[in-house]
């Protein structure tokens, strides 16, 4: 069996956020953090301890937290809000729409426990619609990094970007394979493996699975290209087009609904500029349920095996 990709440790992406936030706190006095009673879960406790005067505990009142964050930009602060992805988006959509996005405020909405890998808490907390909700808002940047190092780098990078950002990450420990010194460029896809038969565009936790799928495909004689789309909006259209014009077909892979996710963004680009077969690895119009993260990824069709199947299906349609 081919092994192209290895990692040294497994860490949760939320810890990458916590580490990035702490570093920002030390280097940028304008950065402030707000949390709605999930400081430990979001790994914001180190920031709170070191910078208590710049940490704002809002209690279980997410709408108020988003409004306060928007207001804090007036006076030059760069607020980072933290709560679960469900409470960061669906619960406060109108507050984000009016007070952050339409008002053009420099708020960073940081969302943990996104998707099925939240696990046992079940569907109430497993939001699979957040990418779609957020990317529909005009000028909202949507980022879904793949591992600890990339989440840390993304957290630091978005502080230097002026404007609203949605940063999505998760709960489980996953392979940490992005080089610690890799620069995070908003809107710039990362080519992880070159190939000529099929382009696999993956985001978040699905990136590692896409790499594992590419290894398995290699054993079957299929040369897959793997691209990490950490920024869903703005999408790196040039990277998508360059890859698919070479391979002739594509797979999208994400821990999100098929409707409104990364796959739809790629489909928009391909249908307008380069019509080629695209297969989706995503949740298909369904809520999640309780279970271990691994069990849920298998049951809802988001595992390595599903990416392999999708790649073969895409190639067959060429």
């Amino acid at each position, binding site marked *: 069996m081919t092994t192209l990709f290895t990692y040294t440790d497994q860490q949760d992406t939320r810890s990458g956020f916590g580490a990035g936030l702490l570093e920002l706190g030390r280097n940028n006095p304008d950065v*402030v953090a707000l949390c709605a009673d999930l400081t430990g879960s979001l790994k914001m406790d180190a920031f709170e301890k070191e910078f208590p*005067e*710049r940490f*704002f505990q*809002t*209690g279980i*009142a997410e*709408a*108020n*937290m*988003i*409004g*306060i*964050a*928007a*207001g*804090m*930009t*007036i*006076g*030059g*602060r760069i*607020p980072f809000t933290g709560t679960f992805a469900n409470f960061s988006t669906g619960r406060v959509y*109108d*507050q984000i*729409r*009016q*007070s952050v996005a*339409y*008002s*053009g*405020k420099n708020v960073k909405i940081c969302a943990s426990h996104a998707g099925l890998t939240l696990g046992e808490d079940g569907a109430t907390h497993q939001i699979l619609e957040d990418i779609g909700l957020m990317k529909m808002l005009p000028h909202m940047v949507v980022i879904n990094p793949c591992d600890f190092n990339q989440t840390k780098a993304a957290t630091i990078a978005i502080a230097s970007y002026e404007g609203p950002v949605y940063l999505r990450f998760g709960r489980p420990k996953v392979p940490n394979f992005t080089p610690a010194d890799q620069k995070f460029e908003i809107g710039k896809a990362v080519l992880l493996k070159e190939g000529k038969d099929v382009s696999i565009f993956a985001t978040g936790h699905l990136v590692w699975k896409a790499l594992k799928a590419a290894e398995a495909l290699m054993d079957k004689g299929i040369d897959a290209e793997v691209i990490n789309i950490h920024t869903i909006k703005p999408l790196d259209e040039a990277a998508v087009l360059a890859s698919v014009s070479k391979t002739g077909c594509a797979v999208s892979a994400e821990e999100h609904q098929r409707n409104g996710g990364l796959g739809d963004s790629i489909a928009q680009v391909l249908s307008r500029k380069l019509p080629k077969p695209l297969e989706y690895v995503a949740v298909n119009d369904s809520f999640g349920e309780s279970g271990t993260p691994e069990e849920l990824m298998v049951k809802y069709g988001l595992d390595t095996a599903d990416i392999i199947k999708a790649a073969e299906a895409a190639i067959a349609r060429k």
Partner: protein
Amino acid sequence: MASIHELQRIATQVRRDILRQVHAVNSGHPGGSLGCTDFLTALYFHTLKHTPVPFDMDGQGQDLFFLSNGHISPVFYSVLSRSGYFPVDELKTFRKLNSRLQGHPTTHEKLPGVRMASGSLGQGLSVAIGAALSKKLNKDNTLVYTLHGDGELQEGQIWEAAMYAAAKKVDNLIATVDANGQQIDGSTDHVLSLGNLESKWQAFGWDVLHMDGNNMESVVSTLETAKSHTGKGKPVVILMKTEMGSGVDFMMGSHKWHGVAPNDEQLAKGLAQLEETLGDY
């Protein structure tokens, strides 16, 4: 600083501006705008420490005002333009295509004087708390003011914000509630009774003041009192009794003029009750 008499004369002109703005496009919200005219006039021409030009979004060293009930944009636009934030003549563009004077105030078109979009109700108090917290971090001892409708208090976010401001001692904040007892579907008692607002705000830990919002002397003196109550560990709220449609007799005493523009005849009848003190745009 304008005298009471001067403020009253400005308010009369602002009321003319309101009627003429909504009449010109046959849309907008005159009722609440007229009711809050004396408050906003006093605030911008007497109470606020502010620099209209050049407009500075961050407003450091200046008092800030957030209009949470954004539908009363006609009074807000009139007062902003009359105090120098943008040309009075621009009131002609209210609610028209390509205007900076959108139906509800927004920063999106970069209208000087507006620091946050409002329209979807209940969000302004949270935003104001954020701005007030920024001032504290920046060691800026100026104040943050807000205005809310009483119907707006039916939004849950207001009470999240009210709880936060008191618990965290956001005491550089003066919120005002336009207690006109009216909303779109009827009286607030009929639609969803607000109960005892004084008790509610007190129970949430706020310093509560009362004011007759259509009496310029009461408005000016209550705002001064409110300022003197800041910095004492509690946010301040002013329950401001107003009459929707105040200043135009046939618009008063009913919710009917919440969001309806006067026709030609009604405009003439209204303007006849309001002296042109500063010159129409």
